[in-house]
C-alpha cells in the first residue's frame, strides 16, 4: 500500500498542488460568475477587491519573515568583515525570536491578554464596579443548573473524544484496505464540512418528534410499532443523543489523522503478530493501537478542547433545556448581561481541561527525552 503512494514524486505533488490551487481559484471564480448578480457587480469589482485584500494580507505576512531575515543577516549582523563569525552567531541567537515573534505576539494578544483580563473581570460583580473576590465562583457552586452543566460537560469531555476517536480509528482501519475505501472516507469526512448550525439542522430532522419527519421515530414505529417520542426529552440519555452529533462531526477529523498514522506502522510488526497467531482484532488492539498512541493523544486532545468550547449544538438543539445544559451554553446565559459570572464560567471550563493539558505537557516532555 505504501507502494501506491510512493509512485508520485514529491515535486510532482507540489506541482500538482499549485495546479489544483490555481484550478480551484478559477473554479471558484467561475461559480461566482454564474451567480446572477456577480456580473453586475463586476463594475465596482468586489472580486478584484477580494483578490487584492487577499494578496495584501498574505503578502504582508510573507514579507515580514523575508524582510526581517534580510535585515538581520545583511544589515544588523552582516556576515562580512572582521567579526563575520561572531555576527553569524549573534544573528542565529536572534533568529528564533524572529521566527516566533508573530506567533507569540498574536497568542499573547488574542489569547493570553483576554484570559488575564477576563480573570480579573470574573472577580467583579455584574456591573463591573465592585470587587467581590470569588463571589461569582461561590454563587456558581451553589447554582443547581451550574452543577448540572458541569456534570454534563465532564460527560461530554469524556464521551465525545472517546467516541470520535473510536469511530475514527475503526473507520480508518476498516477502510484502509477496501477498494472503495477512499469513497467511504470522504463520506465519513463530509460532516466536518458542515457548520454546527447546519449539523444541528440535520439532526433536528433525524430526531424530530414525528414519525413522518424524524427517521428515528419512523424507525421506532416501523420496527417496534412504538409511539413517537422526543429523543431530546428523554432525560439523561438526551445528552448522549446530542453528543452523538458532535461525534458524528468529529469522526472525520480523527479518521483522517489516524489513518495517516496507521499507515506509518511498520508492516512487519503486523505480520509478525499474524504469524504469532493473533486474530485481526488482536492485531488491531494489541499491535496497531499501541503503536499510534501518540497520534491518538493528539487527536483526543484536540477534540476534547473542541468539545469544551463548542456550544452551538446544545444551544440550537435544546437551548440547554431538558437537563442538557453544558458550560459554554450556560455561559451564554450570562454573556453581555453579567460578564462577571460569564467569565467565571469560562474559567471553570479551562479548569476542566487542565488535566488534559498537563497530560500533554508530560507527554511532550517524554518525547523530547
Amino acid at each position, binding site marked *: 500500500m505504501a507502494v501506491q503512494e510512493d509512485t508520485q514524486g514529491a515535486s510532482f505533488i507540489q506541482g500538482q498542488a499549485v495546479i489544483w490551487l490555481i484550478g480551484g481559484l478559477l473554479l471558484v471564480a467561475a461559480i461566482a460568475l454564474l451567480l446572477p448578480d456577480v456580473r453586475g457587480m463586476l463594475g465596482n469589482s468586489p472580486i478584484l477587491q477580494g483578490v487584492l485584500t487577499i494578496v495584501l494580507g498574505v503578502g504582508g505576512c510573507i514579507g515580514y519573515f523575508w524582510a526581517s531575515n534580510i535585515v538581520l543577516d545583511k544589515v544588523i549582523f552582516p556576515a562580512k568583515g572582521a567579526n563575520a563569525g561572531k555576527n553569524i552567531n549573534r544573528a542565529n541567537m536572534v533568529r528564533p525570536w524572529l521566527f516566533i515573534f508573530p506567533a507569540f505576539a498574536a497568542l499573547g494578544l488574542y489569547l493570553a491578554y483576554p484570559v488575564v483580563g477576563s480573570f480579573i473581570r470574573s472577580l467583579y460583580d455584574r456591573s463591573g464596579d465592585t470587587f467581590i473576590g470569588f463571589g461569582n465562583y461561590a454563587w456558581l457552586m451553589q447554582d443547581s443548573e451550574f452543577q448540572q452543566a458541569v456534570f454534563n460537560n465532564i460527560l461530554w469531555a469524556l464521551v465525545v473524544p472517546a467516541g470520535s476517536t473510536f469511530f475514527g480509528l475503526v473507520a480508518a482501519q476498516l477502510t484502509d484496505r477496501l477498494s472503495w475505501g477512499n469513497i467511504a472516507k470522504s463520506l465519513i469526512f463530509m460532516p466536518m464540512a458542515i457548520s454546527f448550525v447546519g449539523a444541528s439542522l440535520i439532526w433536528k430532522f433525524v430526531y424530530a418528534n414525528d414519525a413522518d419527519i424524524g427517521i428515528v421515530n419512523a424507525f421506532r414505529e416501523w420496527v417496534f410499532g412504538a409511539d413517537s417520542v422526543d429523543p431530546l426529552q428523554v432525560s439523561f440519555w438526551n445528552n448522549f443523543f446530542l453528543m452523538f452529533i458532535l461525534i458524528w462531526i468529529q469522526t472525520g477529523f480523527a479518521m483522517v489523522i489516524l489513518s495517516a498514522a496507521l499507515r506509518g506502522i*511498520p508492516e*512487519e*510488526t503486523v*505480520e*509478525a*503478530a*499474524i*504469524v*504469532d*497467531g*493473533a*486474530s485481526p482484532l*488482536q492485531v488491531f488492539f*494489541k*499491535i496497531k493501537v*499501541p*503503536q499510534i*498512541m501518540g497520534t491518538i493523544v493528539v487527536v483526543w486532545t484536540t477534540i476534547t478542547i473542541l468539545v469544551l468550547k463548542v456550544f452551538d449544538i446544545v444551544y440550537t438543539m435544546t437551548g440547554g433545556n431538558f437537563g442538557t445544559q453544558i458550560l459554554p451554553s450556560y455561559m451564554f446565559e450570562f454573556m453581555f448581561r453579567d460578564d462577571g459570572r460569564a467569565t467565571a464560567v469560562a474559567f471553570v471550563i479551562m479548569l476542566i481541561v487542565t488535566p488534559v493539558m498537563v497530560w500533554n505537557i508530560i507527554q511532550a516532555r517524554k518525547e523530547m527525552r
Partner: protein
Amino acid sequence: MANLKLKDVAKVYGGQVEVLKDIDLDIETGELIVFVGPSGCGKSTLLRMIAGLEQISGGTLEIDGMVVNDVPPSERGIAMVFQSYALYPHMTVYDNMAFALQIAKKSKEEIDRAVRAAADKLQLTEYLDRLPKALSGGQRQRVAIGRSIVRDPKVYLFDEPLSNLDAALRVATRIEIAQLKEQMPDSTMIYVTHDQVEAMTLASRIVVLDALKDNGYKYSIAQVGTPLELYETPNSEFVARFIGSPAMNLLEGEIVATGETTTLRTRLGAGTITSNVPSRPEDQGAQVKVGIRPEDAVATDSEDFAFSGKVEVEERLGEVTLLYFERGAGQNDPVIAKLPGIHPGMRGNTVKLTADPAKVHIFQDGTSLLYR
C-alpha cells in the same frame, strides 16, 4: 520437527508480475536451509509464502505431508524472524516474547517458564523489562529470535536476520544461531541471507535462486547443495560467481586438450592451464570460461600462466592482500587475486597468475562442464 515439500510452487503478483516459478524443493526435518540469490529474486517472497503471509499462486506447499496452501499463518506452526526484527515497540522484551503464548491462551506459569528459558538461552534475562528502543541492535536481534523460540514451532523462518547488525555483532550472532540450531537438532530452519559467510557457515544445504534463462524477471532454483558442493562444484557461472567473495574470476578461453583432465588456453594468458574437470573429445576447441577463485589464484614466475596484468589497486587487509587487475579495454570487472599475508608495494607491478588444476572450473554457455 517437520519436513516441507514445495511442488511446482509459483508466485504471480497482481495477476501479472511473475516472480517465482517451478520451485521444487524437499526440506527434511532438522535441516537448516539457506536461500541465497540476487536482490529482488524472490527469496523473501518464498519465505513469506511458506509462512502464509503471501498467497501461493501455483503448486502446493506441504508441511508434514499436509497441503497447507490455504492454512492461515497462525496455524502452520511456523515462527518467523524478520529482517527488521519487527519487535513490538510498545511492549517490553518479556511481553514481546510472551505475546504469541498469551494469544494462544497458555497459562501464566507456562508462559513465564518458556520466556525465562529462552531469555536464559539468549542471555537476555537482564533486559526483560526494557522496551526494544533501549536495546542495541544485537540485543534486538536476539529478542526477535527469542520470540520465535518460545513458541517451539515446527519450522523457523529467518529473513536476513543479521543484515542490520554491524560486523562484529554479526559474527557473534551468527555463532549464536549455529549453536541454537545445534541445541534443537529436530527443528527445521529456513534462512535467507545476502551474506556469503552466513550462508556457508550455517547451511546444511544452500538453495541458490536465479533468473530463468528465457525470462530475466522470473526466478527459479539454480542449484541446491551443501555449502562445499556449491563452493567446489558450482553448476553454473552464476552459482560460481555468487558463492565466494570476492567472486570467482572468469577468463575467456579455449579447450586445447580433452580427457580425464582438460587443458585450456586463456585469452589473457600465455601457455596453458589444466583443470581436473573431465571433458569429451568433441569439446576440443570449444570456447569456454575458465573459472579461478581469487583465493585459488597463485602468483607464478613461470611463463605458463593463465592471466597476467598490472596491479591497479591493492588492498591490504592484514591477513590477506587483495590485488585488483584491470582486465583490459572495455571490460569492467577486475580480475582479483587474494594472496595470504601482507604484500606491500605491489601496486603497479605486473603479476602473473595461475592455479591448482583441482581448483580450475570450466563453464560453457554459463553451465559447468561437470553438470552438463
